């Protein structure tokens, strides 16, 4: 039995009958219908969330403008500033240590490789929070040593050590992505392995890993929030510690929202930059 194909909205007449004898929908119609369903589900979900949320509670607990106003300018001149400073220090330190580890991992000398591998596996396998905790409390006791910069300094050393493990793997991948012909060309010109690495391989490797390294930077920005576990002096507080303190002082959660916005103001341009770099890199090759 055949139905008139004209009953399906939007199809031209006389499409081929499907296996069940029904007229098959045109592919474009099927796509349009499917997309319509997706939109409907989305709208429903948004409505549901809007309906279920307690807007009154949200406004008083999370969007209290007076509480928010109270946080300025302190949140910028101390908290944001410290977050940025900690990130920069941890990133530069992680980059330097990560580069050394990457070179060790590619070294022809066995023990260097083993040490680098052990280091990388260890610190990629541990939660950063635990490492920070260890450097803030366990290491000073075990070695009778006070890290420079107090709790913040101890936490930063931990962040450097953890980020170096990730950065080392990124740089190693970048070095290995440089075509072997580049090394051969440099060596055939009589350049030593060291000069070849410095002048030929590393500049190209860093160009290759700029997008993933920027990603590491974004991750590091967020990981500075873990420093709260070290317990910080007032002037040393970064965004999350600052916001947590404000929450308990004001008995209101608005500071968390403000801190979240501050993080996004820093991280969003960077993630856009990564996307741009990736497009740019692809075109460059």
């Amino acid at each position, binding site marked *: 039995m055949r139905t008139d194909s004209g009953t399906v909205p939007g199809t031209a007449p006389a499409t081929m009958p499907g296996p069940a004898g029904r007229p098959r929908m045109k592919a474009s119609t099927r796509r349009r219908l499917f997309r319509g369903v997706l939109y409907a589900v989305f709208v429903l979900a948004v409505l549901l969330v809007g309906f279920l949320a307690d807007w009154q509670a949200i406004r008083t607990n999370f969007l209290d403008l007076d509480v928010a106003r109270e946080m300025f300018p302190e949140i910028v001149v101390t908290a944001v500033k410290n977050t940025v400073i900690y990130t920069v220090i941890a990133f530069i330190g992680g980059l330097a240590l990560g580069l050394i580890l990457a070179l060790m991992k590619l070294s022809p000398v066995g023990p260097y490789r083993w040490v680098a591998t052990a280091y990388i596996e260890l610190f990629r396998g541990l939660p950063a929070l635990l490492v920070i905790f260890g450097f803030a409390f366990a290491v000073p006791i075990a070695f009778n040593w006070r890290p420079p910069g107090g709790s913040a300094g101890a936490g930063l050393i931990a962040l450097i050590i953890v980020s170096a493990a990730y950065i080392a793997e990124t740089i190693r991948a970048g070095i290995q992505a440089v075509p072997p012909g580049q090394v051969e060309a440099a060596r055939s010109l*009589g*350049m030593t392995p060291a000069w070849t690495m410095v*002048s030929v391989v590393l500049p190209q490797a860093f160009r290759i890993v700029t997008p993933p390294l920027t990603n590491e930077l974004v991750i590091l920005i967020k990981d500075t929030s873990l420093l709260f576990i070290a317990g910080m002096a007032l002037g040393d507080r970064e965004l999350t510690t600052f916001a947590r303190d404000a929450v308990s002082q004001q008995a209101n959660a608005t500071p968390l929202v403000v801190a979240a916005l501050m993080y996004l103001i820093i991280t969003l341009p960077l993630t856009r930059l990564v996307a741009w770099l990736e497009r740019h890199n692809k075109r460059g090759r």
Partner: protein
Amino acid sequence: MAMHNPAHQAPAASTAGPPAIEVRNLHKSFGEVEVLKGIDFHVDQGEVVCVIGPSGSGKSTLLRCVNRLEEPTSGTVLVEGVDITDPETDLDLVRTRIGMVFQQFNLFPHLSVLRNLTLAQQRAKKRGKAEAVEIARKNLAKVGLAHKEDAFPAQLSGGQQQRVAIARALSMNPDMMLFDEPTSALDPELVGDVLEVMRQLADEGMTMMVVTHEMGFAREVGDRLVFMDGGVVVEQGDPREVLGNPQHERTQAFLSKVL
């Protein structure tokens, strides 16, 4: 050339001097596969030797053993009388005297053309910047690319890149040049310019070892032609002789396919 040759000292003023390249009973294996099965080979000073043969015949491997980009499994490689397989030999110093040109050009993509030519001069030959730049410009002019010194490799055609690569090798003032299929990666219309530069070099008396598929170049420019197959030198001699009247049936079979 009364220049620096501290690594070896020719016994007084021998008239001929040692061959530029001398290979004795060279074997090279990659794992189980034996690619070179006892090669005896030499290139005299000022000689242009072209090496031809089917792919997999070991000709590129032989060339790469000459500056030890490949580690010979056994045998001897002498460059101007210096045994480069001897661990005591300063390999980097020997390499500054052997220019090498690759099939894939291998220019440094992050550096300008001029910097490509000066980098190794400064790093390996310890030349000052001004001197290195002067030598680089002279060699760029020689390959007809003086106007491209600020360009980056990616902005050049394949033929231009290969000429820059030749100029880069020449900037080290090498005593000899190795060419590893220098035109095989080029579009046909770009081959001529590169071959022209190579012909000019040969005319100037440069010692050259050229692995190539360009039979015309081998016939017209080469002093000697070596045919390799299956990891051995099958036949060699005057290029016109070998190409026109090959003695060995493997040579005949190969030439019947390519000519």
